[in-house]
């Protein structure tokens, strides 16, 4: 593996680990009641955000989901401002108006998380139409999970992206569950990417825990998108390391399945790649330390930030 690759792997590893530690720290803060509302951890699925987003240009758009912290961090958002948004603070990306389910950062081309399952798919498709309109080479990635793929907007949008040949990648993060409903119970298909055939576009199913393979697999879909050949449907198979949200113990997830997937942890997969690329344990420890520091700072920043101003808020909504 050449030096370029080692650099890429180091970055991927650092980002994936940042997501993992960020989620763990935020869960800790949730337990302290510093974070409220719904919280859907991305733990176990990091390779998808990291693999897909590393393949993008900085000005390519993403549209995220209710399980969206990983996408935000992979897109390079300031973890302090993400954490502050989770805390509902004035310094968060959405000034505390959005929270975990609505983190967005237009400055870094993240149109945002969404509380409506599937709700982001039309927004993403529309953003891609906007790019086509403007003659831009920017691409849009629409993230969603297996549950969302059974919603009507999935069908409508993939079909429209196909006929208009829009520059978009539909990425199904198949974590095998929609809350407690196993994917086998809501579709008879094994590979969700097969649905691409209904729209006459290419589809692929990938190991969703292998960020490098995902990164590599993005080349052709991105090429297609940029030259006006249209969308690709990409399934990344993965698994949550816990329940649907923080307060769901996930008792319905078979222990063996969980163990098997944990043995194939996306962070470990990246670490093994790093080792194979000759990156030393010391270098890895340095990355870890950097990540720990960043996440600690994010928590500190969020903790010390002020609540949103009530006066400003009342003024803001007076015209609505």
């Amino acid at each position, binding site marked *: 593996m050449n030096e370029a690759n080692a650099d890429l792997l180091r970055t991927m590893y650092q980002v994936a680990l940042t997501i993992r530690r960020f989620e763990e720290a935020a869960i800790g803060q949730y337990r302290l009641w510093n974070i409220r509302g719904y919280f859907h951890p991305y733990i176990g699925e990091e390779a998808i955000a990291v693999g897909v987003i590393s393949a993008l240009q900085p000005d390519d758009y993403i549209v995220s989901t209710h399980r969206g912290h990983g996408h935000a961090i992979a897109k390079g958002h300031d973890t302090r401002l993400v954490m502050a948004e989770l805390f509902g603070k004035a310094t968060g990306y959405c000034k*505390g108006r959005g929270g975990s389910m*609505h983190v967005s950062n237009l400055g870094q081309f993240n149109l945002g998380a969404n509380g409506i399952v599937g709700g982001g798919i039309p927004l993403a498709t529309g953003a891609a139409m906007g790019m086509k309109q403007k003659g831009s080479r920017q691409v849009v990635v629409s993230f969603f999970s297996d549950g969302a793929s059974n919603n009507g907007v999935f069908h409508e949008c993939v079909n429209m992206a196909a006929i208009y040949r829009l520059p978009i990648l539909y990425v199904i993060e198949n974590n095998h569950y929609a809350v407690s409903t196993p994917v086998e119970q809501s579709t008879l298909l094994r590979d969700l990417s097969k649905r691409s055939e209904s729209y006459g576009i290419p589809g692929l199913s990938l190991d969703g825990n292998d960020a490098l393979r995902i990164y590599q697999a993005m080349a052709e879909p991105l090429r297609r998108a940029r030259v006006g050949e249209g969308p690709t449907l990409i399934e990344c198979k993965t698994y949550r390391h816990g329940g649907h949200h923080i307060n769901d113990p996930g008792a319905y997830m078979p222990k063996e399945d969980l163990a098997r997937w944990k043995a194939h942890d996306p962070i470990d997969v990246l670490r093994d790649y790093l080792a194979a690329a000759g990156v030393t344990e010391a270098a890895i420890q340095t990355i870890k330390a950097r990540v720990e520091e960043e996440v600690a700072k994010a928590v500190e920043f969020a903790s010390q930030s002020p609540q949103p101003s009530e006066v400003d808020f009342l003024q803001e909504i007076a015209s609505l």
Partner: protein
Amino acid sequence: MAMLKYRDALRLAIKEEMERDPLVFCIGEGIGERGGSYKVTDQLYKQFGPGRVIDTPISEASFVGMAAGAAIVGNRPIVEILFVDFACLAMDQVINQAAKYHFMSGGQGFVPMVLRTQGGAGNSLAAQHSQSLEALFYHIPGLKLVMPSTPYDAKGLLKSSIRDSDPVVFIEHKLLYMTEGEVPEQEYLIPLGKADVKREGTDVTLVTYSHMTLKCLEAAERLAAEGVEAEVIDLRTLVPMDRDCILASVKKTGKLVIVHEACKRGGIGGDIAAMVVEEAFFDLDRPPVRIAGKNTPIPFSLNLEKLCVPSVDDIVEAVRSLG
């Protein structure tokens, strides 16, 4: 009488009706083995099996329409939408199909379905999980609309809704599920369209429904300490609405405050105020007042969220301002 939680009273209503009528079934997301997000259908899967407590994919538009279709062919489906916010996905099936079928078929067909859902702010769930959207259903002819505030009402009204031959939108409030109240051991029904005077009073009429009933009762206690006796009318059913109950109370008190959590603009309060003014203008000593939610998407931050929903203070203040 047993003390029951609101959610348990709902469950009991469903259980009793499912035992009584094999044509009743439940359909929704995660309502089966998991028992639903708010545990209203807990244990029903065990008793009735997957054929009558049916988990769905995330396909709201269609499974609501499926409930309507099953109702037309004679079943009595109870369909659950996790948050009323998500009912927006199913509006075509509710408004254009379920609500109109009886009429459009020239009276041939009936649509005896219940759409159970849940709304309201208070848990820092932000703009897409905290709305009060009852006004959207209220405006559509062909739908009935029920929003109970107590375990007792919840049980009796849900049973009546299940037996009703029209589509009933039944909206619970997320802050009510864990509230407790007395519920008789014997079976009872509460007819749709009857308001309940939750507190009698002579000085001012508070008309409200759902979670705001609790706040109005609290406000009434505070007002009583100041010597003002408020009558608290819990509408319970918004369609059909018990106008007689409202008008009788206003005749007595001469003052009307309408309280709801939904945004003021286009909320049901306007309709009630206009109706009372039309029917009883000269009974009124003061113009009716509406205390309602702010015209804004609900913010995530708890400190902002609480500003969007009427507080007990707001209600007390409003009554005081009537002099």
